[in-house]
């Protein structure tokens, strides 16, 4: 059970950071609360007492979503459900709705935030691969000498390993900024034990743009999670596919390329097998989403995969 002496609900970023500094070492941040409450139960952290819980979900800046110069800025407290029900986000971030539909369930998506998902830095987090594919940057803020200091870094640097990130004491994720790619198609594939509410055994997200003929990949972005300590972009696969024809043979070859990346400690053989299927399915799915005619390619891929 999670208990606290007080539950603070700041409404401005400066107030939130000030509270964090003032109660340094005796506070914890609550955003969506969907991780912290199950964590403070028997079998995990057990009964936990935190003097000050600081709920940042009402901070205005952390809830803002804005668009500019080919980028999207998402306040860190943006819940995942917005990727499904905000038309502008569905359009600008073509892989995020596919990620969101596999993320927990409708109820939890209403609470769980993008900042919380990335801050927890789970190797299997659903949010990391699609944001890596979107070239996301993380903006952080903390109080120093009575003023708010901000810094930013690529998401790939922000997450340092399982549960590890670059946040320093009393620092907060303010926003995630990523590419707006309305002309791309997106996809997300995940395997777990059931369809809702599962932690991914492995997940992958792809973003694809196609040339005018509709028969060649133009740009390809691919990122995977759950197969190692950190989610990764697959630069070599992307390079292989840029400009390549959208054909089963090409996709199949690409899906074999990253198998050595699978270095998870458990169920490695299984993860390798699903991984290959995933990569090819994600690429085909994103190409379809981008407008490519892909029925025949997908049918052929099925045969390749069973071969």
């Amino acid at each position, binding site marked *: 059970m999670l208990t606290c002496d007080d539950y603070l609900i700041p409404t401005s970023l400066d107030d939130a950071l000030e509270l964090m500094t003032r109660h340094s070492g005796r506070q914890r941040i609550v955003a969506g609360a969907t991780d912290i409450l199950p964590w403070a139960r*028997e*079998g995990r952290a057990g009964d936990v007492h935190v003097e000050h819980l600081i709920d940042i979900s009402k901070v205005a800046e952390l809830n803002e979503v804005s668009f500019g110069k080919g980028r999207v800025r998402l306040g860190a407290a943006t819940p995942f*459900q917005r990727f499904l029900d905000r038309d502008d986000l569905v359009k600008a971030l073509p892989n995020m709705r596919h990620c969101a539909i596999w993320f927990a369930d409708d*109820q939890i998506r209403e609470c769980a935030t993008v900042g919380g998902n990335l801050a927890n830095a789970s190797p299997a987090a659903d949010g990391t691969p699609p944001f890596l594919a979107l070239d996301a940057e993380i903006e952080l803020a903390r109080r120093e000498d009575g003023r708010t200091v901000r810094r930013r870094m690529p998401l790939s640097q922000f997450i340092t390993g399982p549960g590890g990130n670059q946040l320093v004491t009393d620092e907060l994720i303010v926003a995630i900024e990523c590419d707006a790619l309305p002309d791309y198609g997106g996809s997300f594939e995940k395997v777990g034990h059931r369809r809702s509410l599962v932690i991914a055994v492995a997940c992958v997200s792809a973003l694809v743009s196609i040339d005018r003929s509709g028969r060649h990949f133009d740009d390809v972005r691919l990122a995977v999670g759950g197969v190692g300590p950190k989610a990764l972009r697959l630069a070599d696969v992307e390079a292989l596919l840029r400009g390549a024809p959208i054909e089963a043979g090409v996709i199949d070859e690409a899906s074999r390329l990253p198998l050595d990346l699978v270095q998870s400690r458990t169920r490695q053989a299984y993860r390798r097998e699903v991984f290959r299927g995933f990569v090819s399915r994600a690429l085909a799915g994103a190409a379809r989403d981008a407008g490519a005619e892909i029925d025949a390619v997908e049918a052929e891929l099925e045969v390749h995969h069973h071969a």
Partner: protein
Amino acid sequence: MPDMIVEATVNGRKIKKIAQTHQRLLDFVREELELTGTKDGCGAGECGACSMFVDGRLVKSCLVPVGKAQGSEVETIEGLGRTGELSVMQKAFHKAGASQCGYCIPGMVMAATAAIRVNPAVGDEEIKERLGGNICRCTGYQKIFDAVGLARDVMNGRLPATALDEDAAEGGRYIGANVRRLDAPSKVSGALKYAGDQVMPQMLHVQVLRSPHAHARIVSIDTSEAEAMEGVEAVVTSADVPGKDGFGVFVHDQPIMARGKVRYVGEAIAAVAAEDLLTAKRALQKIRIEWEQLAGLFDPDEAMQAGAPVVHDYAPDNLVKHIPIRKGDVERGFAEADLVIEERFETQQVEHAYLEPEAGIGYVDPDGVVTIVSPSQNITHHRHMLAEILAMPINKVRFVMSPVGGGFGGKEDMIYQGMLALLAIKSRRPVKLVFTREESIATTAKRHPSRTSYRMGLTNDGRIVASEIRVIYDGGAYGMSTEGVIRKGAILAAGPYAVPNVKIDTYGVYTNNTPSGAFRSFGSLQTQFATESMLDMAAENLGLDPFEIRRINAMQAGDLTHTKQELKSVSLLQCLDGAEKASGWETGAPTVRGATREDLDGEGCRKPCRLGARFHAEIPAPKLSEVA
């Protein structure tokens, strides 16, 4: 305890109430507002029983700190049918028979209501997707999906409102007709009070200290510091049991709380009744126990070996029970056989996972009758046992069966009712205990893990001529239902097949694992799994169709079972015919099928799970604000 004032609108009414800062919205609504229609099934966001609307959005209130509800608009199951009449969705659940134990249903109705509000034209696949965060253990979901589809069609005018009325029984015949359940309105509305929903004046809250060790001697227990705490009204241990301590479905080998030693991780050692839950929890940490570790026994085969650690002194061989069945002469049968198959099978522990965790209230009524209200599946037996344990006449012990939010056999054991009785007597106040989901999984009986050694002899024409079956069931730390389970397992071990020579031995053994107990099928699943697997292997070996080999061996009316019960009527052949037809079975031995099978991928076959039905909705979903 730190608190805060919460102002919000709940079901259309303004409220201003004191909440404890650590409460979840679920606790606040249930405890401070006394709206208990919303259920706590897991406390970890997994089951969805606590679903409610906050500012029009469906959330799981076990994951919402109460502070988040400040100034918000909350809608619970109680808010759906405001005029005293059920909402269309609730009526549809009633009509479709979409509630059984009912515990998941308020959350299910809320999720279904959300689905319709977001998309009034919600398609069948999208319904499944939107209810993905809600777990039901009883219905298998189909009736729930049917109910949501029915409500949608009535709301959209595709079906008349009369579609929600009870169907008239054809020709006055109720067998085979869809009949609405009498208790469904109380469940779909959230009005029904399960044990955990009930409160009594002056009620205390109970927490249980549980063993961290699988097998250890309790050298001493010191509860004095806990008892001295402000707010703690009573602490009990086995020393407080006045009568003959021991319960169980067959053998009374389990004390109310550990007596002298613990036998499994999670076994109750002491229980505290305090003014509030937090105080009771904190008091547990003040109980001092001196342990002496004992060698643990975790493997059922090892339990049967000489020199193994002994779990119960009365059973130095660790044997709960051995059930032998002998019929004919198996060695002669094997000598006649053309094919003899030998195989080993293992099955694992299974948790019942009913949505309602164990809960109960104990009090002593004005006439001195010790009363226990709990979702017990066996109140009369519990009453008899508790009277002996309390050394009270039977007319001074009363059991009230509260609505059972799912049992499946898991609520047959009297594992907490005794503690409630002792605490009510000692504190002279009503006491209430509600298990957490973790506590429920860790401490209640499971389906018996089993190891089966099987030898089956058959003739070339597919007739079973001998079956030799030896099963070891891991009973865990206490007897509970083991004796009955292994007896049923033995009786049904050779399957519904006419086998002339049978030798069956089932053993239930003690180990220091979590106790095993009653669970749907009561021991027969373990042996049926083995028998049916053997028949499939035999069919493959003999080139027979798996349906055919079962028909060849099926018991018929007039046959005697292996334990000499005469069967007056047998429907196995009709069953096989029905299954063969419904599955679209491709006739032939298991070996005849190559890479492709005609009977797969057809109608009724489950497709791989895909999500995203809402992306392809035929009618675009209107904005939330446009929906009433």
